[in-house]
Every structure is written in structure tokens, then in C-alpha cells.
């Protein structure tokens, strides 16, 4: 173990949320330390962002469209509507401006007007559709380095440290050097995201193993609506690594059109303007339509259906879209050829329980920012707002507080746990095999769920935990950049997070948005506009159902068949 680091505010995670949280806390005068499992602005799903909505609320009608889009289509009523309003103000007045001030170029048209697309809520892009994320995050990275905020990269937080129930920092595993050290922090901001590599096909970056959910649960924090897991339908089937490439189903820049989905026979089964005219983020509707095709034997979850832009002028696609390069790289013609698709585990709408007004988690001293929270789906702009709120409140609370003492027993126990994995696998299994096993359980569970399948998934996870985990060992016990060692820690996080996800799914007895149970195929607005709150109690679990208020927008129907709801 290395010497402890002491800071006012510890930020765990280097996506859009963590970056904004660090900058805000730093501006407020706090000493900030960032810890990133990969590289600041290069790991995590923020780099995947393409469209950035511009919240035009200049008329009453536009404002209510915006609210509808956020509350109904993005969050299926499972959001904090007052938070949506506050966040809207940030999106309208600050988000695009603060990035433009940094030098981000919001794409202009021939008349030098900002290029906006989308039927109801306009979105804008940086440079080209499909390239916004990397550019925004690179600028943030530079801003943070220019400020001199210390950033510890290729360092994973593995455990939150608590003192009398208050979070006082975290243990960090620096896998580049193979050392650990504790960070003592007056306040801690968890910003580890919501796109995790928990199923065989996933949009997540490599390092995302739901560490934030797992470490917070272990420290005693509450999770909420973990079962609200989105799937992408129009992601590429091949090559495997390109399962993260999305053939956008939402309107394309430079045209009111969008891609279409075709079944095995070549019939169109989904197009945004026909099947979800109200929503410019139509992923949940795509999933429902695909489920029907799979039922009819006209598609599989991992292939046998196709997407393409061949009904749109190819030069428009090539001019405004980075994705055209994908076709080109495979020797295909974007104006003619279609790509085979498969479904991918995407981002989580739920997360850790949070008070969105302050971004406080259920444990004192702990704040959340971004996809890790249960309060809102996400998006680079919205998570930046979270970062702003969390950074402000965490810096405020840290101000004037004494530096906490580190709980040495916990620090030592976590060290023993980490170094306990640094042993050879004699007859045992390797961490990567366990990772693949866990992902297989969640892939098999898939989109169509029911009590039987959920219980079966729990049993399979338990078997991995009881039989495989104790035998887990490594091929190499060198300390330097030992990815197997890091995989071993990931496995423990993934087991905890997937178990919690399945348990949460068992508790929600309805279907909603991305969440489909064929034993409860009804969207039940009377009972389930609610947070399914889950937390650990010793070795067991506890739960409760917290209704979510709907002060500004209510659903029209109390109950409706899942396949008839348009959100």
C-alpha cells in the first residue's frame, strides 16, 4: 500500500459528468482529485455521443414538447420532473455556450447557422454527426489539465471507505504500477457512468463493469430502478468489436429521414417517422418491434435483420455523417447496402438512489453525477448538469470540514482483498472466463423477461459466485499493467451489480419503456411510476417502492398494454 492521498473533493470517473463535477468543484475553490479507470475523456460512454439536444423553450409549445420528450420518451415517467426543468435551463443557457467558449465548433450550414435536426426537439452536433463525443471530451480533458487538477489515470476506485456510515474516501488500485492507495476525501463524487459491459453484446467501453453500483451497494447505499436497462436495436452484428456502432434510427442531419430496419425477408419493420413520430429517441419502440419479428421467426436477437440508409441520398449521408466511413471500410456502399444488426445492452435509466436537487446519494458524504444516478436517463448535456450540481454541493459541504481520518481496518481489508486475487490459477478459472460467464447470463436473460427466467438467472449468478469465484486465479502474477488482476476485481463488481439488477427486475411487476416482462405485459401507471429501491442488509437485501411525483406531466392512461404504449 502506498501513502494516502488527501483531498477536499474526490471525483471518481472521467466522463462528461465527472469532468464537469471536477471543474465546478475546482472553480468553487476546493482541492479536487480525479481518479479514472481508463483515461480522462477517453474511457466511458461519453465519447459515443453524437446528437446533443438544444432545448429551445422559446414558446409554450416548444417547452411542453421538450418536457414530454424528456419525461415520457426518455424516462417513461421515472424521472424527477423538477430536475428536468432545472436541467433544461442549463441546457438552454449554459451547456452549448461553455463548450463553444472552449473552442468546440457546433456545425454550421451554408448560411453559417447552427445545423439543427429533429422533428420536435432539435439536436445539434459537433463537427459531424457521430463525432461529437470524442471532440467534446478532448476539450474537457485539456481544460482540466490546463487548470492543473490532478488526474490519476489507469487507476480504479475499488471500494468506498466509510466512517460511521459517512463516505470518507476510497481505495484506489493503480493497475499501471500494481499498487493501491487510499484517498481521504471530505466529500466524494461518484461518476462511473451507466453503460456497463454486463452482457455479451454491449455498447460499453472495455473497463465498464458497474464498479460504481457495486462499491456503493457494498458501502450500504441504495440503488433504484436498476432493471430499467435500455437496449440498442440497430447496432452492427459484425465485426464483434463494432457492436458499439449504432445505425442511428433518429433523424439524420441534412434530411428529415432516418434509417430503416428490415427483417429477414426484407420488409421494413421500423422507421422513426412512421412508428414513433413523437419521439426522436425511439430505441424502446425499436426493441418492441424487433421482439415481434423475433416471435414471428423473421429476425434473431443477434442477427438476421438489417439496417440501412439506402432510401436516403447517399451524398447527404456521406457529407454529414461519420458513419458513412463504416460502410466504406467494409467495402460497402452506404447508398445501396444494408448492415446486419444485433441487439446490444445499452445504458441504464436507473442507478443509485439520489436526491436530484443536490445530487446527494443515500449515504452522507457521497454525491453522484451522471449516468450512475437513477434520476434521469443521461446524455452528455444532462450529465454535465449533474456534474455542475454535484460539484457545487460537494465543494460546499467540503468547505470548512476537517480532513477525515481513514478507517484503517477497512483500508487494510480492501488491500487484502485486492492482493488476494494476485495468485496463480492452479486448477481454477481465469477472471476473463468468469466475465464471459456473467455476460452470458445477462445475454440469455435478454430483453424478454419473466419470473422464471429471472429466478434462473439469479441461480446461475449464484453458482458462479459459489463455485467459480473461490477458484479464480491468474495466469500472471506480475504487478505491472496486469489486466487479469483488474479483471478479477471487475468480476466481483459485475456479480454484485448483475445480482442487484435481476433482483430489482423481480420486484417490478409490470412492463415499461425498455423493461419488458411477458408475465406482466402491462404498463401500470397507477402503481409503478415508482422507484424500486434496493439495498444490502448484511448478506441479504432489502427493498421498498417509492412513488415518483408527476407534478408537470402525467400519463394519459392509468394502465395500457405494453405493446400499445408509445413510450
Amino acid at each position, binding site marked *: 500500500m502506498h501513502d494516502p492521498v488527501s483531498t477536499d473533493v474526490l471525483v471518481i470517473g472521467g466522463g462528461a459528468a465527472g469532468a464537469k463535477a471536477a471543474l465546478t468543484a475546482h472553480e468553487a475553490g476546493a482541492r479536487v482529485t480525479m481518479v479514472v479507470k*481508463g*483515461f480522462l475523456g*477517453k*474511457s*466511458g460512454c461519453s*465519447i*459515443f455521443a453524437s446528437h446533443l439536444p438544444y432545448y429551445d423553450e422559446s414558446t409554450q409549445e416548444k417547452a411542453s414538447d421538450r418536457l414530454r420528450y424528456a419525461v415520457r420518451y426518455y424516462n417513461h415517467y421515472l424521472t424527477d420532473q423538477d430536475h428536468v426543468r432545472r436541467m433544461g435551463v442549463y441546457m438552454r443557457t449554459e451547456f*452549448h*455556450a461553455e463548450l*463553444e*467558449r*472552449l*473552442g468546440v*465548433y*457546433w*456545425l*454550421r450550414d451554408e448560411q*453559417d*447557422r*447552427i445545423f439543427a435536426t429533429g422533428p420536435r426537439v432539435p439536436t445539434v452536433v459537433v*463537427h459531424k454527426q457521430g*463525432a461529437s*463525443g*470524442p471532440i467534446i471530451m*478532448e*476539450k474537457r480533458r*485539456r*481544460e482540466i*489539465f*490546463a487548470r492543473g487538477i490532478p488526474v490519476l489515470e489507469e487507476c480504479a476506485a475499488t471500494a468506498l471507505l466509510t466512517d460511521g456510515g459517512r463516505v470518507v474516501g476510497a481505495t484506489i488500485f493503480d493497475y*499501471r504500477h500494481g499498487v493501491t492507495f487510499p484517498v481521504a476525501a471530505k466529500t466524494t463524487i461518484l461518476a462511473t457512468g451507466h453503460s456497463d459491459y454486463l452482457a455479451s453484446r454491449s455498447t460499453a*467501453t*472495455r*473497463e465498464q463493469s458497474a464498479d460504481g453500483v457495486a462499491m456503493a451497494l457494498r458501502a450500504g447505499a441504495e440503488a433504484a430502478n436498476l432493471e430499467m436497462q435500455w437496449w440498442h436495436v440497430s447496432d452492427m*452484428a*459484425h*465485426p*464483434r*468489436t*463494432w*457492436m*458499439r*456502432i449504432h445505425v442511428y434510427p433518429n433523424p439524420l442531419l441534412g434530411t428529415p429521414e432516418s434509417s430503416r430496419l428490415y427483417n429477414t425477408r426484407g420488409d421494413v419493420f421500423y422507421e422513426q417517422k412512421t412508428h414513433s413520430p413523437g419521439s426522436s429517441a425511439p430505441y424502446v419502440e425499436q426493441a418492441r418491434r424487433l421482439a415481434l419479428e423475433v416471435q414471428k421467426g423473421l429476425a434473431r436477437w443477434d442477427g438476421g435483420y438489417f439496417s440501412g440508409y439506402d432510401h436516403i441520398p447517399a451524398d447527404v449521408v456521406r457529407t454529414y455523417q461519420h458513419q458513412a466511413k463504416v460502410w466504406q*471500410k467494409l467495402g460497402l456502399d452506404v447508398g445501396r447496402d444494408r448492415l446486419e444488426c444485433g441487439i446490444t445492452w445499452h445504458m441504464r435509466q436507473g442507478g443509485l438512489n439520489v436526491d436530484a436537487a443536490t445530487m446527494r446519494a443515500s449515504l452522507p458524504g457521497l454525491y453522484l453525477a451522471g449516468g450512475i444516478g437513477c434520476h434521469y436517463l443521461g446524455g452528455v448535456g444532462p450529465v454535465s448538469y449533474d456534474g455542475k450540481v454535484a460539484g457545487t454541493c460537494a465543494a460546499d459541504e467540503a468547505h470548512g470540514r476537517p480532513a477525515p481520518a481513514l478507517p484503517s481496518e477497512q483500508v487494510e481489508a480492501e488491500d487484502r482483498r485486492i492482493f488476494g486475487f494476485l495468485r496463480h490459477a492452479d486448477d481454477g478459472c*481465469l*477472471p*476473463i*472466463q468468469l466475465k*464471459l460467464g456473467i455476460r452470458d447470463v445477462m445475454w440469455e436473460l435478454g430483453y424478454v423477461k419473466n419470473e422464471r427466467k429471472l429466478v434462473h438467472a439469479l441461480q446461475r449468478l449464484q453458482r458462479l459466485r459459489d463455485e467459480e469465484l473461490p477458484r479464480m486465479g*491468474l*495466469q*500472471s502474477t*506480475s*504487478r*505491472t*499493467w*496486469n*489486466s*487479469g488482476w483488474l*479483471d478479477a476485481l471487475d468480476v466481483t463488481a459485475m456479480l454484485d451489480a448483475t445480482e442487484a439488477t435481476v433482483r430489482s427486475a423481480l420486484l417490478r411487476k409490470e412492463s415499461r419503456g425498455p423493461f419488458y416482462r411477458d408475465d406482466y405485459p402491462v404498463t401500470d401507471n397507477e402503481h409503478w411510476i415508482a422507484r424500486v429501491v434496493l439495498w444490502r442488509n448484511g448478506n441479504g437485501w432489502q427493498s421498498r417502492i417509492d412513488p415518483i411525483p408527476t407534478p408537470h406531466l402525467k400519463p394519459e392512461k392509468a394502465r395500457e398494454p405494453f405493446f400499445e404504449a408509445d413510450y
Partner: protein
Amino acid sequence: MDTIRVRIRRFDPETDQAPRYETFEVPRAPEMRVLDVLDYVHETLAQDVAYRWFCGVKKCGTCAVTVNGTPKLACWEPAEAEMTIEPLANLPVVRDLVVERGPCREGLCAIEPLIQRTTEYPGFPEPLSHRAMARAGHLRDCILCLACHAACPVMAEPGTRFAGPAVLVNLAEVALDPRDGADRARIAETAHVFSCVSCYECERVCPAEIPIVRDAIEPLKRLVYRRGIGEGARHARLFLDSVKKHGRVNAPQLVLATQGANREALGRGFRMMARGKVNPVRSLLEGRAGGAEALRKLYEGSEENE
């Protein structure tokens, strides 16, 4: 079954005296990328092989490796039937295929890679012409994968002070931004932009297909040249005087005239020219009317712009 033979360079600093190679056979999958091959090896054959990647889809820029001698983005390039995979050159190796990116990060921080506004930001959306922003359009595709850095022969010189093409692409991006007011000529000079010998190796390997020399390095060289600062600019002036006069580089004259100014890079440049690898004049003429006359006009034009 169709298989891929992959030889991977291994090096564990804790147990290996020197790098070694290990060969694996991997079944081919549809449209397989180099990264899919590495994943297969990691998942089934050698769990401890160290290689870095995050996004899998050409966004994070961390997966570049050397494939059969050429730096490539692993997640983007197709797997070949026979592959030797090695870490990127010109960067210290951490383990196996993982390299230390720190030197490039420092190089990037040193060029002050954010625009420095001379007037107050007017608020969103600020008036901007898409035409002016298009000058750096291609440069915005850079994902800092460092493939160009690994391919650059000047970066391979021990003790080189050249910042390298990856850093220069990002320097040019801000230098060509109409909103930027920093002294980019001075910064480009500190980055030793004139160490570049215009060999086009960086462009050849760039997965984002950025015309690095034309869109980044040459505009930076012109910037320094116009300002007339530093040794590099002195060399550039002599170089261009020679081209203007003779319509080609008079190498002996130039070497004599520069007398040690950047001799190291110059000497290398001429060695490469002699081997037919480099044609510095081509880089200045590309896309324009050919010949000494055109070139003379061009440079007289740019001198008037000072």
C-alpha cells in the same frame, strides 16, 4: 476452419529480460478486426496478454498497435491471415502491447492546446463562418491514437526535440481557428515543426485519413516562416530561396548555408530524399499549379501577407 496466425510480441518487465514472441492460431470470424483477434487470444488462449483499448470503434484512440510493421488502429483495421503484432514504436513499452502515452500528453499540454480568445466570448451561438472553420475541418477528426507518432522517422531519432505529427495536428487545429489569438508561430517553433522532413509516413498510417502534412504541418511551417523566427524559419527561408531560384532544392548549397541549423534533421531529410522516400517540393506543390514559377508566386504572396 479458416484460421489466423498471429505472432504477438510479449514483454513483462518483471519477468522478461528481453521481448519475446508468442504465436497463436485464431479462428476467423465475420469481418474480423485486429482487436477481435486480440480479444480472442485474451479470452481463450493467453489471458495475460496486455493490450489497451476502450471504445472498440475508433473513438478513444487507445488501441493502436504495430501490425506487420505498420502502426494501425486495432479496432478499425481488418485482421490479416498472418500477423505480427507489436507495440507502437517511439514510445516506451509498459507491458506487451501497452505503451506509455505520457510523453505525448506532455507534448500536447506544452502547446497550449485550447484556443486563446482575444475578444470576449459573445455567447452561444457565436458568429462563425463555416468556411473559416473548414480550414481545420479534417484536423478535428484526430483521436490522438498516436499511430502517426509511431510512424514518424524523426520521432525515432534519439533525443529528438520534435513534438511529432500528433501534437502538430492538434496545434494546427487551434492555430487555424479564427478565434485563436495565441502566438502559435512561437509555439510551433518550440515544437520544432521544421524537424519534419515531409516524408508523409504519418499520413499513410492515419486511421482518420487526415492530410497531416498538407493541412497541419505545412500551414504551421508557413506560419513560422512568415514570422521569420528561430532557426527553423531561417532554414525554411534558405530552402525556399533555393527552390525559388532553381525550381528545386540545391542540397549542397542548402546544407552549406544552414551551417548546423537543424543539421540533424536536414541530414536525415536528404538521406531519405536520396533513397527516394522524400520529396519536400511535392509537399509544397500538392494541389496547386506545378513548377518553380507557381511556387515563387505562392511564397511572394505569403510574404506580402505578413
